[in-house]
């Protein structure tokens, strides 16, 4: 009998590679969702119209990848929930693993997925503009964020991290549901009920939460906020799932 000693990092690395390969179907769902979002964006995300005497009037349309980014965040959220379901857990507990390595490799997988989907989401904004310019004869007033490389990179980074943060929400919720099926009902009730209650007490709270994450003007503070939130969610998920039984 020869017993093998294994190192945590090594197993996490193997599992991460395995998950990227095993979950290929998630990428095809991403492509479908982003194409769909792109289609919705063709109508423009904002319109300004003016008309004055003597002119036919001009219409200014705003084309951006915002819808694609929002859809991608939802995709990250749902993908993360799926990773916590029984079916996925059974696939991964076939091979060498424990709860910690499984969670860590899931987080790495979600991060890789966030990078990939973030890049495609941001680039789809340019695709959208190219389409409008080439096929619909729109004149550019302003090409948008493409002008400066620094802004492009910071926009890309924040998009990736937003997707990552949303996947951390999904991961936490999915893990909590694994504790007991009751949470399938309790979680939405608490979230929707909470939002309703908060808005009754103080309507601004919801807006405050939104602006806390999305309207932070300092790039680095924004990054810190997102990373901290995601980190807390993932840590909580790891803590909860450490006592869960698998292959029931």
């Amino acid at each position, binding site marked *: *009998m*020869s*017993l*093998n*000693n*294994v190192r*945590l990092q090594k*197993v996490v690395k*193997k599992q991460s*590679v*395995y998950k990227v*390969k*095993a*979950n*290929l*179907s998630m990428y095809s769902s991403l492509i479908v969702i982003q194409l769909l979002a792109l289609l919705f964006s063709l109508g423009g995300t904002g319109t300004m119209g003016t008309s004055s005497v003597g002119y036919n009037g001009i219409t200014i349309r705003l084309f951006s990848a915002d819808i694609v980014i929002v859809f991608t965040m939802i995709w990250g959220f749902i993908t993360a929930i799926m990773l916590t379901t029984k*079916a996925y857990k*059974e*696939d991964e*507990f*076939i*091979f*060498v*693993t*424990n*709860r*910690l*390595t499984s969670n860590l490799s899931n987080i790495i997988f979600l991060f890789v997925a966030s990078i990939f989907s973030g890049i495609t989401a941001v680039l789809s904004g340019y695709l959208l503009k190219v389409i409008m310019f080439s096929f619909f004869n729109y004149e550019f007033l302003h090409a948008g964020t493409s002008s400066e490389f620094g802004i492009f990179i910071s926009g890309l980074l924040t998009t990736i991290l937003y997707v990552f943060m949303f996947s951390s929400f999904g991961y936490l919720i999915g893990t909590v549901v694994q504790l007991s099926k009751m949470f399938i009902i309790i979680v939405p009730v608490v979230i929707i009920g909470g939002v309703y209650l908060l808005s009754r007490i103080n309507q601004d709270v919801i807006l405050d939460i939104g602006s806390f994450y999305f309207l932070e003007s300092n790039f680095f503070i924004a990054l810190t906020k997102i990373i901290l939130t995601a980190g807390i969610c993932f840590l909580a998920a790891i803590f909860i799932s*450490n*006592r869960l*039984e*698998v*292959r*029931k």
Partner: protein
Amino acid sequence: MNVITCEGLKKNQRKVRALSDLSFTIKENTITGLIGRNGAGKTTLLKILAGFWRESSGEVKVFNQHPFNNLYVSANTIYVDDQMSFPASLTLTEILQEAEVFYENWNGKLAKRLFDYFSFHPEQQHENLSKGKKSTFNMIVGLASRCALTIYDEPTTGMDAAVRKDFYRALLRDYLEYPRTIIISSHHLDEVEDLLEDVLLLQDGSKCLHLPIDELKDYAVGLTGRTEMVRQWIANKEVFHTNNIGAGTTYAVVKKEGIPLDNARQLGMETTSVTSSDICVYLTDQTKGGIDDVFK
């Protein structure tokens, strides 16, 4: 060296007691048969040993470590059953390649040869396999992984007779070449008994017997004779089973140890040996008369 030690192991599932006060040890490099009726706690025990489930109380050690959520135990253990599921996006060949990444002792040559022998298609998907083919594929993963502790939970589900025979032979030959600790749970003791060194018999979540298979075969003896005589003779002995056959004749199974068999033969009773699987059935029967009691 003991690979597995259980001491007062208990497991409750909701309010039902699945295992109660189970204590046993399993030595290194032995093949043990885990036998018991449906619901005796076989799968519960095996899933605890594999680290999937957590015991409710008592002590369990695998390779001297607590198995639940343990990476070291997981790296040296494989649990094979008919519920194994693999990612749908991987083909059978890719699954074997992934298994090779995870299991250090993986024998790729053996896996490939078995794969070809049982004529699997490299591009096939696991979920599209028939029940028997799935079991066969899982068996290949179990054999090739060469884990120090290899657990087969009802490995032959759905396999036809020829494949079962091949599986048992493959299991034994690979064990001879590369000894390791193997536990097989099965309903078919008669099929696996030749492979086994020890038998662990469970009844209602606790240990009924744990002994070498050869001793199990010698554990009990069957007596056939006139009802009154058999009744009288077995009165002060440990009786596992009695059955009336025809008018005035009774068949009884009693513990063999310390029984004056010559005396029984002189009295005109016929003594017969009892197969190990029959002994197991009689030992774990709820009622002494078996299913016939229902029709009384």
